[in-house]
């Protein structure tokens, strides 16, 4: 049952990441990978919120491991960071990696604090 819920959540989270990234690129011409930063920060906030509420194992599998897990990504972050460095945009590479880590951590904390305030 857990596996099925993870599959369902991921089957929504992964395409949503693609759609968000496309939408961001269409509106905002920039080398900086804003789309990845956006999904990683949003997914970290939502997962922090869910973990701190806390939600039951079913919701955790569907929305946590499945949806948030697939909405957010490390592989794209890694690839975009190396590509930016290869293209001579080392500053963008460092800024993107640092922003993902710092804002992702802050978003997870904010999600947890929000859940704590509501509970």
């Amino acid at each position, binding site marked *: 049952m857990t596996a099925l819920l993870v599959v369902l959540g991921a089957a929504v989270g*992964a395409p949503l990441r693609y759609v968000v990234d496309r939408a961001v690129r269409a509106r905002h011409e920039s080398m900086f990978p804003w789309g990845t930063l956006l999904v990683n920060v949003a997914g970290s906030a939502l997962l922090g919120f869910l973990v701190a509420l806390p939600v039951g194992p079913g919701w955790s599998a569907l929305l946590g491991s499945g949806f948030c897990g697939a909405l957010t990504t490390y592989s794209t972050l890694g690839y975009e960071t190396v590509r930016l460095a290869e293209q001579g945009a080392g500053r963008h590479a460092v800024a993107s990696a640092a922003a993902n880590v710092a804002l992702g951590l802050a978003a997870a904390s904010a999600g947890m604090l929000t859940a704590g305030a509501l509970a």
Partner: protein
Amino acid sequence: MGKEPVDVRVLAAIAAGGAAGALARLAAESLLPAPRGAFPWATFGVNVFGCALIGVLMVLVTEVAARAPRLARPFLGVGVLGGFTTFSTYAVQARDLLTAGAATVAAAYLAGTLAAAVAATWAGMRITRALARR
């Protein structure tokens, strides 16, 4: 870019790949659960391995293959590897380590994953390029 309508087949490939990748991540995390306050090795391994594979895949799809199958990148890259690797779990685990008073482990996990992930991506790309030139 991105002005044309979203291709439903691309979305379906990403959904299927993402589901498969997330299942593999779930398997890794249940094989090696991280006790509270300990370094989350399973998620670390998933993210670093997934980065090595994206390096291999992206070089194959964008540089080596004359005509890569159209759905290869959406299915394997955006889907499988995107669903396999995760940032949200990483961020929440780091926050949990800080809450548990394991600040050194949290810092090592945050910086260690980032460094290893970027190095693995780079290595995956370099090795694939080197092999493709032979």
